[in-house]
């Protein structure tokens, strides 16, 4: 990937800021998401909660299904490939997906290596649960980061943990002397230049969204107040009682994440939220996939 292409890919993520990216499994759901104000949709065959319930190996979605969603909406369409599965990524690039999520939600195809995302023209978003993971993914060519959270649980605790961890590590680097950054780069297993960027700018070099377990407008606003630049909502919408209404409420809560009065109104009569699973009840910790 040329430097210019990488810049364009980071810049597309900048355009998504302040927005909500929603998981959808059909063109019909994609239309509902777009009408509710999603800034992009993630096309996948099964939402994380169902992947979790079904168990077994979970793979990239059928390209035909993804194409159906691309035709249904005018907003950017993202899709997931397995960690390390560069051929799935090549397929997604061939159908001109707008963003690839190399995602721990699917079963990893490689337990050592991530995809060399620098080989691709299309942009990648990757999950991270701390600063080291985020910078390693960026070094591999990711142009957007999201917290891993714990997908498909409806429990926001891990997303909060990951966002706080990243923020505190960024704050720590910002306050370091420059001569300490070399050792920090070694500890994080990332190039010095990336650590230096974080030191000088007090932020990641790419846009950082929250993901994993966001189920309510309050969850979304919580992540925004913690410093997320936008929010992914997976199972939280189409596993709830009134997806349309909940989706629109989450979109507005992200725009006005500091207005508690408005968020109170938005939280009324949303119907049933998705049934959550607590951290202690989970059998597979997806966030532990790919480090």
């Amino acid at each position: 990937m040329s430097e210019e292409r990488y810049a364009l890919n980071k810049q597309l993520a900048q355009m998504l800021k302040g927005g909500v990216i929603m998981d959808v499994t059909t063109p019909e759901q994609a239309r509902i998401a777009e009408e509710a104000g999603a800034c992009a949709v993630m096309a996948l065959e099964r939402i994380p909660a169902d992947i979790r319930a079904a168990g077994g190996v979970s793979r990239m979605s059928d390209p035909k299904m993804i194409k159906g969603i691309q035709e249904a909406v005018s907003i950017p369409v993202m899709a997931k490939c397995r960690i390390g599965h560069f051929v799935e990524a090549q397929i997604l690039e061939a159908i001109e997906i707008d963003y690839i999520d190399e995602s721990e939600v699917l079963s990893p195809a490689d337990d050592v290596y991530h995809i060399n995302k620098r080989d691709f023209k299309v942009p990648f978003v990757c999950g991270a649960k701390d600063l080291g993971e985020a910078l390693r993914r960026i070094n591999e060519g990711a142009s957007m980061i999201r917290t891993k959270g714990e997908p498909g649980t409806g429990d926001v605790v891990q997303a909060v943990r990951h966002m706080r961890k990243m923020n505190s590590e960024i704050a720590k680097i910002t306050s370091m002397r420059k001569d300490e950054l070399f050792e920090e780069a070694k500890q994080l297993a990332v190039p010095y230049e990336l650590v230096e960027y974080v030191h000088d700018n007090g932020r990641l070099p790419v846009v950082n969204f929250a993901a994993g377990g966001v189920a309510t407008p309050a969850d979304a606003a919580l992540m925004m107040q913690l410093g997320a630049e936008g929010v992914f909502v997976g199972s939280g919408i189409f596993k709830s009682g009134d997806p349309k209404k909940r989706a629109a409420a989450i979109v507005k809560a992200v725009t006005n994440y500091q207005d508690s009065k408005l968020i109170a109104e938005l939280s009324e009569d949303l119907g049933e939220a998705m049934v959550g699973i607590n951290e202690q009840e989970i059998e597979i910790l997806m966030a532990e996939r790919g480090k």
Partner: protein
Amino acid sequence: MSKKTIAVLAVQGAFAEHIDRMKALGAECIELRQKADLDQEFDGLILPGGESTVQGKLLRELDMFGSLQEKIKNGLPVFGTCAGLILLAQELSNDEHVYFGTLPVRVQRNAYGRQLGSFHAEQEVKGIGTVPMTFIRAPYIEAIEEAGEKEVEILAVVDNRIVAVRCRNQLGVAFHPELDADNRIHEMFLQMCDH
């Protein structure tokens, strides 16, 4: 030039980048996120890049649409980039929506295709010189509407497509001047706010 206050639509998209530019040029900025924000006084309005469907919907649902449209019609200087140009356009060739509809041009959304079609260029902008231009899933202006034939001034053309126009109080560009290290288009807009 007295200190200007520029309102930036901040419901979704790359509004922070515009605010940085405006502050660098010495202007004050306010963010428009809901109706109450419109009570403040401002000399100009920026409609940033992002997703026009999201911004258009939130403008209506957060009850800002009518007042802003009125202000633009009454001559408030407005600067739309990418999605912002779509919000201003009188007609969209591949979308049934019309938002403010104050700029008499016909615009095609996602006119260069998906993200793989995004590109960078350098091209002449009338009155400024050559500027860097970043196009992200960008629109372009297909045609000037009949109503605007006398008023719409074409400022830039890339590969035979119109990518920047000015019409009275409105400046619309298909690319993202807020993403490149060049403040001249923002300066041009600040000058429009001076009149």
